[in-house]
C-alpha cells in the first residue's frame, strides 16, 4: 500500500469510528463497511481498526476469521453466493452451479481473473420456497434456471 493510500484508509476508519463509536461493539459494523467497499479487510485496515478501538490486532483478525461474510483476501467486485441447502438443492441447484462455473470459467471458491466475480456457496438464504436462489453482494435472486442465472451474471457491469 502506498503512503497516500494508507493515509486515506486511516482517515476513512477514523470517520467510521466517529460514526459507530470507539467501543468494542463498533468493531463488526466497521468491518462490514470496509468489507462492503473493498471486498476484503486489508492488513493495514485491521491494524488501524485495532489501534483506534484500542484492542489487539489479533482480536480483529479473530473476528474476521469467524464470520463467513468477512475476509482478509481480496474478492471480486461481485460476490455471488449460491444457496446450497437442501430445498434449493432439490429445486435444481446443481444444474445452476454447473452453468455458472462453465460461463465464468471458474470453480466455486475462486475469483475471475479480472476480479469481477467471486463464486461461493452459501448456506440457506431463506428463499426455500423460491429456489434455487443466489445472492449477489446484497441483492437476492430467486427461482433460477441455469439460463436465467447466467443471464443475471452477464448483466453485471
Amino acid at each position: 500500500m502506498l503512503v497516500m493510500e494508507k493515509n486515506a484508509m486511516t482517515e476513512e476508519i477514523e470517520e467510521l469510528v466517529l460514526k459507530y463509536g470507539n467501543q468494542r461493539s463498533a468493531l463488526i459494523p466497521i468491518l462490514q463497511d470496509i468489507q462492503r467497499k473493498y471486498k476484503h479487510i486489508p492488513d493495514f485496515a485491521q491494524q488501524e481498526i485495532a489501534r483506534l478501538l484500542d484492542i489487539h490486532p489479533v482480536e480483529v483478525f479473530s473476528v474476521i476469521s469467524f464470520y463467513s461474510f468477512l475476509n482478509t483476501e481480496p474478492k471480486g467486485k461481485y460476490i455471488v453466493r449460491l444457496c446450497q441447502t437442501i430445498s434449493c438443492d432439490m429445486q435444481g441447484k446443481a444444474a445452476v452451479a454447473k452453468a455458472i462455473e462453465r460461463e465464468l470459467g471458474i470453480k466455486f471458491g475462486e475469483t475471475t481473473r479480472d476480479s469481477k466475480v467471486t463464486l461461493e456457496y452459501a448456506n440457506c438464504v431463506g428463499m426455500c420456497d423460491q429456489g434455487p436462489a443466489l445472492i449477489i453482494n446484497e441483492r437476492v435472486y430467486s427461482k433460477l434456471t441455469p439460463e436465467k442465472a447466467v443471464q443475471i451474471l452477464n448483466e453485471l457491469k
Partner: protein
Amino acid sequence: MEKKNRKGAVLFSSYKPGEGVKKALSLSREDILFEIRESKLKGRGGAGFPTATKWTIVAAAIADQKYIICNADEGEPGTFKDRVLLLEYPELVFEGMVIAGYTIGATKGIVYLRGEYEYMLKSLEDFLESMKKDNLLGKNILGKENFNFDITISLGSGAYVCGEETALIESLEGNRGEARNRPPYPVNTGYMGMPTVVNNVETLASIPHIISKGGEWYRKHGTDKSSGSKLFSVSGDCEKPGVYELPWGTTISELLHIVKAKNTKAVQVGGASGLCIPKSQFERALAYEDIATGGSIIIFNESRNMLHVLKNFMEFFVEESCGQCTPCRIGNVKLLEGVEMIEKGEYKFSYINQLKGLGKTMQIASKCGLGQSSSNSFISILENFKDEIFNGNGGANGK
C-alpha cells in the same frame, strides 16, 4: 412495502398499525404481563420458553439499562417466516418490541438481522423512520411521559450459530459469535452484562395481537399446551410452498393436504437440526407436546434419496459449527464421514451404531443448541429410513 393477501387466525389477521402500542400504554406493566401469561405464548424460535416468564424476570431486575433484542438471524434450513414477517408485517415486529420495552423498562431495542437479509435493511430503516414520525418510537411515545424507546438494526455476517441467543449477544458486542456458558442467562446477564430479553421475530409479532385482542382470545387457538398459531415455512416437494399460519396441533398429513403435496415419503420438521418424520408417523401433531418446531417443513417425495438429504444436512453442520466445543466440532465431521462411508458402501454396521452413540453424546455434551441438535437428523434419518439406506437399493444403491 406491499402486503400480500395472506390469511390467518392470529398473525395474519387484521391489525391496525399502532393499535397494540396504544392499548399497551393504557395498561400497567403488570396488566401486560398478565395478558401475556394468560395467552401462554411460548418462544417461537423453537425452544418454546414461556415469553411471560422471560419478560417477568427482566421486568423485576434492577439495572441502569435493559435491552430487548429481536432475533432475526433466521438461518435454519427451510425457514423463511421471518423474511415474510419483516417484509410484510414490520409493524407487528417493531410494535412488539416497543411493548416489550415498555413492559420490562428498556429504552433500547436491537434487531439482529442476518447478513443474508441485508436487502431488507433499507426498507426496515425507512419503516422505523415512519414510526418515529408517528411517535410510535422516540421520546414520550404517544404522549406517554418518560417512555422513550428506540430501535436500531445490527447486521450479522453469515454465521448460523449467531441464532443462538448468547452467541448473538457476543456478536452484537463485537466478538466472535461463540455461545456462552449458561447460566447466567441473558435475562440476568445479557447484552453488555445487562438484563436482556431475546425474542424471536415471530414471538414479538404475536405481542401486539395479544395486547389488543387479549390473552384469552389468543389461547382459544391451538391446543391446551401449545396456545395460538404458528407460521410454517413450507418448502420441498409440494405444489404450493410458502408461509402458512396454522393452529398448533395441526397434523403433518393435514398440512401436506393444504400445501398439495403428493407421494410424500418423509417430512423434515424443524430444519437440519430437526427430525425426519416418515410416512407412518404423519398423523403426529405439530405442537410443543408432540413435535416441537420453529416452523421449518421440508417435504420429500418418493423420488428423493434420503442419504443425499442427510449428507446435505451434515455438510451444513460441519460448516456452521463454530468450533468452540469438541463434541460439535469433531462430532459433526465424524457423522459426515459416516454418511460418506455409507454412500460408498464401505461401512460396518457396528461403526454406524457407534456413530449413533456419538450423536447421542453430542446431544448431551455440546455447549449450545447447535451441537445438541445437529445429530437429530443423522439419528432419525438412519433409523426411519434404514430399509432404503442399507437394504435393497439403498446405501449407494446396493453397492
